């Protein structure tokens, strides 16, 4: 759904109303916006700032701090590969290089056809069965080169 399909303002207002009266609502609001549109559209920021009596700079300061928030929608499949120490001990760096080479993109990027987004992640808590990944939210353990290729080709995780 693109932000400018005519329903954007109404949906955003509805979403802000759901969080009205909550203590510390900014982070849950940004998460709800991303859940709704797949990213946090720049066009949403003035309304969020106005609703919370914040400056747009303050909202931007929060938004830009976190790795999770996207400025553009992710690919149809999101592969989060763990790069932290426990997975490195099991060869995660080589898998990361393989994924980037195969897709022709860098960390945090999406393929030109919009098929796959490759995100680095630092620990999924799957440290005793690494290398680990999260594929469309599904945990994957003991990832190897063949399985990674299959996942990047669209196979079920």
């Amino acid at each position, binding site marked *: 759904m693109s932000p400018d399909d005519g329903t954007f303002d109404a949906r955003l207002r509805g979403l802000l109303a759901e969080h009205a009266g909550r*203590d*510390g*609502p*900014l*982070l*849950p609001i*940004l*998460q709800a916006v991303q859940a709704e549109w797949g990213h946090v559209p720049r066009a949403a920021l003035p309304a969020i700032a106005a609703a*919370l009596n914040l400056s747009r700079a*303050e909202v931007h*300061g*929060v938004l830009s*701090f*976190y*790795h*999770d*928030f996207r400025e553009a929608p992710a690919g149809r499949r999101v592969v*989060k590969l763990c790069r*932290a*120490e*426990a*997975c*490195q*001990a*099991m060869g995660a760096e080589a898998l990361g290089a393989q994924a980037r080479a195969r897709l022709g993109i860098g960390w945090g990027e999406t393929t030109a056809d919009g098929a796959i987004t490759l995100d680095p*992640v*630092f*620990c*999924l*808590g*799957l*440290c*005793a*069965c*690494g290398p*680990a990944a*999260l594929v469309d*939210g*599904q*945990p*994957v*353990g*003991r990832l190897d080169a063949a399985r990674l290729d299959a996942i990047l080709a669209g196979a079920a995780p």
Partner: protein
Amino acid sequence: MKVWLSQDAAARALGAEAVAAALTAEAARRGVALDLVRTGSHGMVWLEPLVEVQGPAGRLAFGPMTPADVPALFDAPAAHPRALGETLALPWMRRQTRLTFARCGMTDPLDLGAYEAAGGLAGLRRALAMPPAEVVQAVTESGLRGRGGAGFPTGIKWRTAAGASAPQKHIVCNADEGDSGTFADRMLIEGDPFCLIEGMAIAGHAVGATRGWVYLRSEYPDAIRTLARALGIARDMGLLGPRVLGHGPAFDIELRVGAGAYVCGEETSLLNSIEGRRPVVRAKPPLPAHEGLFGQPTVVNNVLTLASVPVILAEGPAFWRDFGIGRSRGTIPLQIAGNVRRGGLFEAAFGLTLGEIVDDIAGGTASGRPVKAVQVGGPLGAYFPRALFGTPFGYEEFAARGGLIGHAGIVLFDDSADMLALARFAMEFCALESCGKCTPCRIGAVRGVETLDRIARGDAAARPLLEELCETMKFGSLCALGGFTPYPVTSAMTHFPDDFARPREAAA
């Protein structure tokens, strides 16, 4: 036929859902009534997916299971090639002292009745019958220290918050378990969430707080789902709400999900994150116990700290205090990870040596190659060589050898590990995750990466520079991110000097 199968994220990552589907299909094919209970994990990750079947004396374990192994389970379980014997008689289980994780792996995590039948709520009932000050006293006497890493005495933190006078106080559970090699918080929340809720309710009663918050990282989608459902059940059943258990004080818990920022595991950054501010670290004082969330008195405790409280109240402080060594009392859920033959969660009294944990319990590396280094305490923890394997697992014992136990994650590396690359990664990670508030961390980590690159190119003059930089970061940073990043770096340099002695590259 009664069968148990873990739904822990690690079990699911290794194919538990396919095994569950195979169990259901095979039972249907044979016309067998299947009673499949999805549990948390016992912590034997190398055996996941672990299936358990009711045996004559206890549960019989089978693992690691694949869908192809399922049909034979319905024929002659005793002769099954994956049969391991009775679960609780397995060496990994028998050698543990499971106090915090007593129920994890045993029960359906969302079955409050099963929770209570397995000893749950006894601590909260006992606590509600005591004046708040006595609850604080019990926690103090138990010797419980913060399991998030800092090891601050929990009772003293509670007493400070209890003594603060304010219309509103908070209990904040730090479930932003970002350290690589740690997963105990995740396992507890996925496997026994009511234990955390009970611990938080006890804390609320003890310090006079009516609002609780769990700050849970977004990288744990399974834990988020389980805890959200557990909180709903707890409210429906009166464990949380205007009167805890029908007669206690008011207490409710709000779940907040992080958004991918390692530094939010630092307590003041976490508080800013909940408040909706940019989550930079706050200078202390004021302590959160005086001025925490929204400026109100706040206890910030790690998941394991809070989940240890129910058993302390149920069994009494002396029961807990009698386990452990020195000033490290009670049990610690060790998380053994990385290149490891038998990885998983192993809860034991403090005092096992690192060598016992690595060689004996974990069985060395998965690759079968020699253990080169062990990082204890997450990305901010030191790398220990075999020469330090005699170190007993305890806060002071590790500190005395230039390390820290942190959140008790233990990551094994085999002899293919490049310690200079790991030291560089520590600096790179700090640069990526620095909140930017203090200069030693924000700039120092970037300079650290550059200096390590110089060393990698054979520039020996860069070594003293790196040592000086580490000193500056250690003593000049506002929080543990910048302050402890030197631990992995200097320990790698000290204990593995060969990896830093690179031949000088020819000038371009």
